Every structure is written in C-alpha cells, then in structure tokens.
C-alpha cells in the first residue's frame, strides 16, 4: 500500500526534524444511510471518505494537519504543516506534554460478519423497511412512520515514530423504526429497538435481520396510539425502574462523560464542559450504591465501542471505573494517564482521518447484578413505582451533575404489577445521589449492549460510535415530572 510507505517517509522526515513524537493515521470509509418515511425514500446516500492525518508533538506541544490529497508530495507536505502548527502551539506553552510509556504495538484487528451489508441489494433493504412501515401505518393516526438503516466499513492504518504499525478493518450495521401518532393536539412517538436510528453493532446485515423490525412494528404502532389517550405521568417522588433502552443514555451522560479524564482536567471546559469527578475524588468518592459496578471495556465482541487498538495505538482493555459504588477509574489517553501515575486505558478515538483523537467512551457498561434478577421479577418486587423506557429527551449540566431525561413511555406499578400506561414521563436528579439510590440491577439474562452512534464531543465537533452494556435497574425515591 503506497500510503503506508508515504506515511513512514513523512514520520522519518519529522523524526529528523527533531520532533518528540509523531503518528500518522490513514482512514478509508464507505457508508450507506437509508431513511424511509411513510411511502417515500426520504434520504439515501452512499459516501466514500478517505484521507490521512499527521499528529506531531514538538518540544511538548501538539500540532495536527490532515489532507485528502493522496500523493507522496502531499503526505510529506502535510507532515511539515503539522510541525509548523506544533511550533505555533509551542509559542504559548506553559507545561510540556509527556506521553506514557505504552509499548509501540504492531498488529491487526478485524470485525467479523456473515453478510456484507454494502453488498446486499438495495431492493432487499428497502423491502424490509417498507414492510415494517406498512404495519406501522395501518392506523391513520400514525402521521409519520419512519425506518432507518446505516452501514459503515472502515479501514484504518496507524503508524508512529515509536515504531507502531496497526491495521484495523471494522464493519458496522444498524437499523430502527419509529411511529409518530398525532391526535387531539398531542404528538406521541414509539421507537424500536431504540431512538435515533435504532441499534448498531459490528456485525453484518445479519444483525439488521436479527432486530426483527417487522415483528415489532405492530407493538410500536399500538403503543404510540395508546399514548395519545394515556394519562400524563404524575409529578412527585417515586421509585423508578429504568428499562435498558433508557438506562443506556443515563449511563452515557452521567457515568461515561464525567469519567473522561480530559473533561476532568479541564481541556473541554469551554465547550462540552468539565466533570464533577475531579482527580482528587479518585478512590475516595462513593459515586453509587454497592449495586453499581461500571467498567470500561473495549473488548466486547460485536459492539461498536470495541476495537483492537485505539487511535494512538493503545490495545483495547477492560478496566473498572466504579467498583461497588466507589469511583476508581477514568477513560484516559497517553497524555492524561501519567497525571494519575497510570498508563493509558486506550480510549483515544478520532471520528475520521481529519480529526485528532480525543478521549472518548468505548463500551462503558453497568455490570449485571450478581443474582440473575429479571425485569419481571424486579417489577414484582416493587410495591409502588414507575417503569420508564426509551429515551425521548436529554439534558445534563456542564459538570454532569443535574440531569433531566424524558422517555417515550412509562407504566405505573402498583402491588408489583404494571397497572396502566403513562405518557410524557420526565425524571430528574443529581448524579451521585441518583446512583446511590440504585438498589437493584437486573442480571445477565436482561443485560444487553446498546450501540450509540451519535456521541458528540470536541471542536470541530466529532461524532463517535460508542456503546453501553446495561440491564434494567431500580432507583428509590426519584423526582419524577417537572418541579414548579
């Protein structure tokens, strides 16, 4: 591959120029997004995106340059531009950057699949989506029936002046449907298997078929219609069972983001925000109850939060973040981990070739409870409460403390049984108090990994594919509804 030799030459050139460190990343990605709405193809695009980026550390200051022009001269020139940018950064340096001593890696990583989704005929994909939409639209009150499919094939190459050489090939597939019902001035939506494009995994088209969109369409339609006449979720304090389709975003916003060490150190403070989990709290703060165990784990097969190596060449790892409620770990990089006297946990990821890697979530998972408690058993164990499912709205403050989530659907629980459907559920809380109120997490049989392909961070904004393994869990005495 020519680009590998050109990047090697550029890195050699930079080494001769006296840089502390440099790496080069080449990325070639093919994507296909399909959106069907009612009887129409609302959006269908295939995209090819290819280029490279060179990152330079010069006298402890970073520079990065990226280009889509794939010639030897352009690769060499881009390396020199990255060095110029690093020299500019050096003008304002106060503390030089030092990297950890992660051993340079040489290796490959490839995700498996049975059916290449980009080779599946378009007719077959549209047939599946329109079949599901036909069921959703069997009642006129469903004003919008929508279905989506997304496929990504990414080939990546990573080289560094330390001698790292890594090739990775990652294939991702995802799909989902949703029904929007309108009646009497009200709008209600149900999504399957989740909102915002459904679920995504590093499998082939077989994953899309395994979601059984058509088989679940009738339930989505009927629930959306039932919500139009359901009672609003009452405001007040209540025990709350959160289904995994909502808990995934709760974990994402209130566990994942605040444990990104760059946020905690203030490097995102002017945009995405900081974190209440500052390093002085590491090993000391009771973040949650003893039922709460959260791990970072980039090794789970099939998940879009998994990989062989992160985008600065660190191998995928599994490590504790919250252990029996205690805050014990961060998502880190080669630059930030030494602040804690540690080495990188392998969480540096870049959206594409023209983005620098940032600390991003991988799979940040709420571990299943030790007893194999099921959701049905958890409901039966709850005298009075509310069960909420599927995210509808989300908001959390810049330190990740005060959050408010809205869900598509809720059910009132009385005497251990779901007694009626409720609409427009909203709950709010303060992160550590909320997780300390968790008294039960369901077991392995209800634990699943959800792919979230739209995590935003950084400037210019980067969208990352992350994932969370979660099981339904119960939280005691939570503020439900909007306080007036």
């Amino acid at each position, binding site marked *: 591959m020519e680009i590998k030799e050109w990047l090697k030459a550029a890195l050699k050139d930079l080494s001769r120029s006296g840089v502390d460190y440099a790496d080069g990343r080449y990325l070639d990605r093919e994507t296909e997004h399909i959106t069907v709405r009612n009887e*129409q*193809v609302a*959006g*269908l*695009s*295939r*995209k*090819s*995106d*290819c*280029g490279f*980026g060179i990152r330079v550390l010069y006298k402890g200051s*970073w520079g*990065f340059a*990226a*280009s*889509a*022009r794939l010639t030897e001269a352009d690769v060499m020139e881009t390396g020199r531009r990255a060095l110029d*940018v690093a*020299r*500019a*950064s050096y*003008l*304002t*340096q*106060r*503390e030089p*950057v030092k990297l950890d001593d992660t051993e340079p890696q040489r290796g490959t990583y490839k995700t498996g699949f049975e059916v290449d989704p980009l080779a599946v005929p*378009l007719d077959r994909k*549209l047939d599946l989506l329109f079949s599901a939409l036909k069921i959703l639209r069997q009642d006129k009150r469903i*004003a*919008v029936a929508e279905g989506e499919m997304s496929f990504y094939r990414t080939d990546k190459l990573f080289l560094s002046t330390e001698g790292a050489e890594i090739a990775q090939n990652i294939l991702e597939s995802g799909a989902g449907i949703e029904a*929007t019902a*309108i009646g009497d001035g*009200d*709008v209600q939506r149900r999504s399957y298997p989740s909102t915002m494009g459904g679920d995504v995994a590093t499998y082939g088209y077989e994953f899309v078929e395994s979601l059984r969109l058509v088989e679940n369409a009738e339930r989505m339609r009927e629930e959306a219609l039932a919500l139009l006449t359901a009672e609003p979720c009452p405001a007040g304090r209540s025990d709350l069972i959160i289904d995994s389709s909502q808990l995934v975003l709760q974990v994402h916003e209130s566990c994942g983001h605040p444990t990104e060490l760059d946020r905690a150190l*203030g*490097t995102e*403070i*002017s*945009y995405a925000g900081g974190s209440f989990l500052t390093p002085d709290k590491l090993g000391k703060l009771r973040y949650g109850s003893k039922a709460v165990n959260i791990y970072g784990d980039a090794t789970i097969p099939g998940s879009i939060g998994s990989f062989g190596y992160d985008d600065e060449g660190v191998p995928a790892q599994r490590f504790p973040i919250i252990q029996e409620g205690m805050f014990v770990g961060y998502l880190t990089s080669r630059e930030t981990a030494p602040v804690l006297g540690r080495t990188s946990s392998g969480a540096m990821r870049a959206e594409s070739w*023209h983005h620098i890697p940032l600390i991003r979530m991988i799979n940040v998972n709420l571990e299943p409870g030790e007893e194999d408690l099921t959701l049905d058993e958890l409901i039966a164990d709850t005298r009075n409460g509310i069960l909420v499912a599927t995210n509808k*709205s989300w*908001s959390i*403050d*810049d330190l990740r*403390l*005060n959050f*408010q989530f*809205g869900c598509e659907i809720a059910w009132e629980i009385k005497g251990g049984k779901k007694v009626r459907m409720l609409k*427009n559920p*909203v709950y*709010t*809380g*303060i992160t*550590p108090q909320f997780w300390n109120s968790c008294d039960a997490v369901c077991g392995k049989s209800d634990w699943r990994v959800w792919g979230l392909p739209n995590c935003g961070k950084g*400037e*210019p904004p980067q969208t990352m594919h992350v994932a969370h393994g979660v099981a339904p869990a119960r939280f005691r005495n939570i503020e439900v509804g*909007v*306080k007036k």
Partner: protein
Amino acid sequence: MIGEQQILALLKRVIDRSPAERTELVFMGGRSGLTRYTKSSIHQNVIEENTQVYVRVADGKRLGVVTINRMDEEELLRAAAQALDAAKHQPENPYFEDFPQPAQYQKTKTYFEATAEFTPAARAETMKRIFAQADRLGLEVAGAFTSEEGEIAVLNSNGLSAYQPLTHAQITIVPVSEHGMSRSSAFSHDVTKIDFEAVAANGLERCALNKDQQEIPLGQMDVILEPSCLAEVMMWLGFIAFGSNSFIEGRSFMAGRLGEQSMGENVTIYDSILEPEAQGLPFDFQGFPKQKVALIERGINRGVVFDMLSANQAKTRPTGHGLPPGMPHGAIPWNVCLAPGDSSLEEMISSCRRGLLVTNFHYVNGFLDPKKALMTGMTRYGTFFVEDGKIKHAVKNLRWTESMLRAFSNVKAISREREVISDEGGSFALMPAVYVKDFTFTGVQKEESD
C-alpha cells in the same frame, strides 16, 4: 482553495458526461484551522483540507445520491453511475419534478483574504496577547479560535451554476478563576473586524463578577436572556417548528396554525441572509435563491422554510433552505433573526425589580413536547441575581423547563443591539437580548440533592 473557474469547469464536464438523464453536483471544500486552549496554553491545534462532492442524479422520478471526497473527473463519473444505479432501485418520489432552473442570486460578501491567510502562528500570537491580558488579572483562559476558508458550488444539468467563497473567523474566550467562569465570543467573515482585546476584556470583566454563587429558590422569575441563550433556543425552534418536515407532518405548533397568534405582539422572527450585522450564503444546496422568510410576525405564525421536495409536497414554492442531497430532514432555517426592540441590556437590568441575568444556556433539549415548544436546559458561564435594577450577586447554575410559546408571549423588552452567533458553513443566528417575565426554573447544579 481550488477556485471558481476550476471547480465549475470540472463539475460542468462531469454533468456533460454523466450517464444520468439529469444530474446535480454540490461541491463543498476548503481549509480550516482551529486552535483550542485551556489554562492559557494551546492544547489542540489543527488544520485540515478537504473537499466533498454530492452527486445526485434523477432517473425519471427516482433519485440517487453518492458522496465522495475526491475532485477527480473519472471518480465523479463513477459516483454518478453508482447514484444512477441506486436511483433505479428506488420507488418513485412523487414530489420530484426537476432540478431547479438557473437563477439570479443576491450579492453577499462572505469572503475576506485576511481571514483566508490567517495562519496558525497568527492565531497563536493573538492568543499569547490574550493570555497575557488574563495573566494581569490572575485569570486563566480556555476556548477556541477558528479561521477558515471554503467554497460552495451547485451545478445541475438544467444549466444552473452557483458559486460562493466563504471565510469564517470565530473566537470564544472562557476566562476561568478559582471561583467561576464567563464566556465572550465574536464572529466575522473578516478577521480584521474582530477586536480581540475587547472580546477578551468583556469576558474577563464578567468572570470577576461570577463568584460566591448563591442558591436561590426555584420557581418562576423574570429573566434577562443574553443573545447566545436565544441562539440556542432558535436552533431548536428551527428544528422542531420552523423547518418543513415538522410542519407538513403536523408535529409542530406551526402545523395547521398559520395566521394564529402563538407569541407576543412584540416578537418577530425571520430568516434572512442580508442583515446589517451579517450576510450569508445566497443560495441553498439545491441552488435555489435564499429568500427572506417571515416565521413569526408580531407573534403570529407566518410561515416555515421549504426545499425542492417539501415545497412540492406542501404545494408551495421553495424558499432556498434545502440541505445537502440525501439528508432526510427537509428544509431548515439557516439564518434566524429575532427583530430588535427599543431597549438595551443596561435598561433591562435597571428596570428589573427582581430577576436573573442569564449569560448562556447549556445543553438545551426541545424534544419534551414540540407542540408546546417545551424545552429544558441549564444556565452556564454566569447567572446573576438582579434586584432593584442592579446586579447583586452570582447564583448557581440553574435548570429551566419552559414552553417557548409561553416565554415568547411574556417578553417585556428586546434590545436594539443584536449579536451574530455563528455556526459553521454560513449558518448564523442574529439575536438581541430579551427580557422575559416569569421564566420557570426547576433545578440547580450542586453535588448534594435536597
């Protein structure tokens, strides 16, 4: 920059040789530089060059789109063939008739060489001076400074040919003390128009005020919202109410209610590329001329924006707000402006008996109940308690949950001065400060709950 002649000539050749009966090409490309800093030191510093070409073809009423990031004639022709293949496998789109015909565009000045030539070293030197300014006050600075140049072109097989170069300079200053933060920012197509020292001084002055934040009782309170708060709300209104799809599908408060009063008589919201304070891209990504669109006029629902397909579906005309090909969102307003009033920020503060001055919102979400434009969000970078016409003290960041229809029906005053709040790619909001009565606060940022 590739340049107008070269881009248009290459794309014209691709259209002439396209295997499709009708072809549309949208080019976006350029070079951008972004410098991020924290603790008064640059920690991220990047430059990138990229191009993107959307190739959309029509086979009768079937449309196919392929996007590539290579400006190569043969590769673009391959993309056109792939798009045609995709089109042939799709159902007909009853709302597609033809790509637009050639049009005349308003002249807007969006490119300035000084911005295009602004180097990473120039950004670093600028920041070095601002860091020194902060050092003198014992403060640290975080933020980002962008300077970029780009080109956008739209061509189709009807002979339509549109081209516009753009430059963009934007700086965000977030001074940080051990007590709190503040934020100031500036945007201009022309980097020489930004008074960096003044932007920094504004932020540094505010930071000194943001200390000893107290907790106040939750509930309804008068608020004075600065322009950046309004810009974030308008972005959400654009998505849930002022765009084509939510209107056509009946999901928004505008749907079926044009001509009805939904906000106060002193509120007028419109989309425009030709304002004294800022100018935008004169055509959309389909080549339709951008029109000034009245969205809310004296509180009355007046209209929404449309692109080619949504206009045909709604049996109306496109307003020039189409997004790049293949996107499923319909038309979205790009340059939302709130009409100025006759007050000023200082007059609002001095007229406030008891209320809050809110400088910035954070993480707004408008999906709670779009029919009521019910939104939630946090305050950030400085929230101040105002009493008897004076700023008394800072308060802790607050969560608010409010219907924007209710809020914009309770507007007591609007400032004469407006601020350009920019997004990338020619999108901006032009917002004044607004005094809103009885805004609803529902939570507070703190580590311990009640």
